[in-house]
């Protein structure tokens, strides 16, 4: 026992580095064992889980797409029947949008944002744990339902009346709608945490004009989530009520409105595209800055473009409804706004190009994925401007042209930056490097395979091949290209397989990574790889956009925090001036119990409305347990 153990309220000012790390570790570390794993609130552990789960869903969704390509490879194929095919394309879209794309972006933010702003844990860490369990439960609900042949078969946007009580028999559409509730609850929870983390927990001195661009993009994304997701929760709840208790939200004969669904869904659904894309923009900015050895050109312009995209995102949902029979003037307005969003997107592209032009690019794997992103996303953006025009959209609506367009935008705009980001931050997260050679091969296969798979779909669409058909007749002129697309999909799948193999192999036995393998400039590289449970031994103080470059070696730090309890610094919104020491909640099992109680309530309510009444009892008990004071030191503050 050292003499310091007797000192009440020990602060980090009193300790040397070794002693400080030892004490911080005992305060912040997650206990070993199942119980510790279930009750942890460490944003890095939860973020890692989130990322792995999302990639498992990516692999599952990819398997479904291969099954569809196998079925479509030749006319009149007998591999999948029509009913199963309906389930498969619905599962593919729903899974990729709700269980992969949005959660994986939030997962990256859950892991990285607290590190990038230099704090010790995310705001509301128990809510963070709760959001992961909700997400996992929602994913399991959807996939277990699919495994037992009750998968939703109404398309990923579940238009009424086809998803309504009259046409969607059984519980399939209810499972879709309730899965929405799960993922939206988790997404909203993470969005709130991120906003508070970015606004109130930045390192002292990190004023708003000095936050990394990835953090800016996640901040804008979080606001998009907070404003867009309630629309879909209202819509899916109204759908369940229509189906279960006989409300008439979408029944025009009783005063409801069919188009209400499409408006509510796409008021969420279009911002959803930017909820997926904006984090990717942040990742691209980060990677470009690191691999060109200079800050991104036009920081202010980039931030303004992010915000402009975020605002415009809410003004163009109607372009998904051009064939729904809306007034002409409205359609013209939304054509204009849809084309207008190409302006901020183009501005960002030119800023990146200027950065590369002015910098000294190093073509490592993460940067290759960024180059791939730019090529593919620009093509997707151009077909986007094409389908923004009403006459053209009327022609290609519900054809493979649209399938090609949104895969170019979503895979090009989000998955390529994400894979680059995985290669980039993998050493930080696992402490090991991924393999550069395999990475280049994976990039080459994915880039080639992607273009060969999806570019011909433009042509198929112009030839009139509709979406969502489970087979086609030999007389149609589509069979040659479809076979080509299916073969190319194998190349794409091989690239992803290589990526997964590389990731697993490197996580187990890759070369050990230093703290800052890429000579990057942002705060997450100032701590060890992987970071300790408390992130930083002493709270960093930031005075510039690139703290690790401008301070060559020694980062100024703040001190004065308690080490015997979880504590972090709260700073002001604009200038990040230190305001207070704030305690951060410790591990708790109650978020898990609360998530389980919510899961029971939500799944039960697919079958009877009484579930909302009786299911709220265990939920109330779990929440009471969650918020009951436990008498820990963190409760004192």
């Amino acid at each position, binding site marked *: 026992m050292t003499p310091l153990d007797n000192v009440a309220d020990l602060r980090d000012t009193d300790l040397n580095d070794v002693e400080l790390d030892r004490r911080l570790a005992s305060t912040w570390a997650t206990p070993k064992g199942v119980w510790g794993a279930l009750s942890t609130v460490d944003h890095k552990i939860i973020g890692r889980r989130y990322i792995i789960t999302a990639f498992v869903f990516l692999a599952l969704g990819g398997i479904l797409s291969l099954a569809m390509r196998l079925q479509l490879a030749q006319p009149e194929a007998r591999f999948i029947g029509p009913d199963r095919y309906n389930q498969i394309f619905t599962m593919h879209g729903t899974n990729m949008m709700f269980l992969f794309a949005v959660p994986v972006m939030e997962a990256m933010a859950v892991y990285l944002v607290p590190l990038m702003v230099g704090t010790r844990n995310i705001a509301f860490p128990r809510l963070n744990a709760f959001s992961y369990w909700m997400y996992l439960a929602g994913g399991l609900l959807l996939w277990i339902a699919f*495994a*037992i042949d*009750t998968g939703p078969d109404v398309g990923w946007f579940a238009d009424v009346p086809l998803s309504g009580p*009259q046409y*969607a028999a*059984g519980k399939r559409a209810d499972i879709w709608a309730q899965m929405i509730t799960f993922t939206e609850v988790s997404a909203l929870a993470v969005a709130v945490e991120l906003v508070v983390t970015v606004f109130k927990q930045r390192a002292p001195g990190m004023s708003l004009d000095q936050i990394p661009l990835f953090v800016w993009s996640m901040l804008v994304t979080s606001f998009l989530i907070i404003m867009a997701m309630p629309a879909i929760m209202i819509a899916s709840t109204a759908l369940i009520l229509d189906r279960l208790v006989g409300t008439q939200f979408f029944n025009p004969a009783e005063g409801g409105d069919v188009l209400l669904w499409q408006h509510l869904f796409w008021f969420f659904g279009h911002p959803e595209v930017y909820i997926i894309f904006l984090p990717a923009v942040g990742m691209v900015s980060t990677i470009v800055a690191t691999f060109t050895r200079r800050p991104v050109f036009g920081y202010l312009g980039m931030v303004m473009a992010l915000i402009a995209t975020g605002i415009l995102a809410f003004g163009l949902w109607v372009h998904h409804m051009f064939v729904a029979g809306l007034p002409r003037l409205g359609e013209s307005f939304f054509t204009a706004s849809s084309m207008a969003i190409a302006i901020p997107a183009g501005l960002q592209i030119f800023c990146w190009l200027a950065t590369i032009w002015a910098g000294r690019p190093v073509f490592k794997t993460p940067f290759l994925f960024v180059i791939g992103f730019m090529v593919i996303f620009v093509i997707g953006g151009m077909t986007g401007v094409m389908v923004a025009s009403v006459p053209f959209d009327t022609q290609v609506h519900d054809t493979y042209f649209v399938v090609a367009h949104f895969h170019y935008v979503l895979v090009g705009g989000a998955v390529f930056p994400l894979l680059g980001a995985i290669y980039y931050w993998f050493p930080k997260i696992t402490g090991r490097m991924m393999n550069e050679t395999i990475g280049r091969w994976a990039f080459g296969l994915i880039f080639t395979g992607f273009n060969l798979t999806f570019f011909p779909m433009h042509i198929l669409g112009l030839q009139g091949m509709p979406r969502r058909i489970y087979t086609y007749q030999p007389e149609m002129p589509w069979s040659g290209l479809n076979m080509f697309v299916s073969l190319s999909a194998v190349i794409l799948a091989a690239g992803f397989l290589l990526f997964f193999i590389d990731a697993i192999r490197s996580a187990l036995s890759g070369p050990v990574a230093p703290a800052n393998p890429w000579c990057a400039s942002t705060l997450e590289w100032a701590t060890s790889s992987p970071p300790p449970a408390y992130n930083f031994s002493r709270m960093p103080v930031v005075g510039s956009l690139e703290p690790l470059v401008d301070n060559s070696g020694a980062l100024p730090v703040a001190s004065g925090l308690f080490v015997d309890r979880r504590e972090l610094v709260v700073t002001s919104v604009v200038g990040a001036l230190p305001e207070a020491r704030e305690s951060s909640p410790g591990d708790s099992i109650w978020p898990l119990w609360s998530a389980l109680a919510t899961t029971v309530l939500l799944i039960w309510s697919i079958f009877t409305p009484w579930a909302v009444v009786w299911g709220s009892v265990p939920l109330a008990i779990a929440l009471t347990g969650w918020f009951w004071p436990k008498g820990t030191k963190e409760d004192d503050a």
Partner: protein
Amino acid sequence: MVRGRTLANRLLLTSALLALTVGCGFLGWMRQPRELRTNPPVLADLSRFRLMSNGIGGAPPESYFAEAEPYENDAYNLSQGKRLYTWFGCAACHGDGRGAAGPSFLDGWWLYGPEMVSIVASIRDGRPHGMPAFRDRMTIEQIWQLAGYVQTIGAYSAKVAATGRNDGPQTRPSENRAPAVMLFEEGPVGVNPDQGPSP
């Protein structure tokens, strides 16, 4: 020690995942698939039900039981039956189920009994006093689907599978309400004089 526990945790997680997968696979294999194109021999067998000589009651084909009575227990078939009810103009005589020129279904009074084969025979072969035969207008599978739906309108006991409401004016309680027997205090006693002609 720590290593042993991690290994135990991994084993626990793996076996839980394995159990989940196997369980789902088993359930999926047990459930009856939604048949958009029923097997032709099974379809042909649907015509081979046996009716009592008075035209009331009888026995469905054996294959119907082997398939777990799909036209009574499967929400998809029931909802198909509901669409056929509209498409083939049943409402012209039977209204929204409350009856008009033809008898009501909703009140739970069955002139020829509530068994599936009776209803199927009524639709296929017609009945006296105005019920036409639909033998040449619908496939035998459609007739079974429609019969299953008509049966749920006046069902005596609650079912797990039910159709939802239509996107139209709501003129009567929906099919997934409590069963018809709850509408009657005493239950059916003799022939209801309001039911139109007796058999």
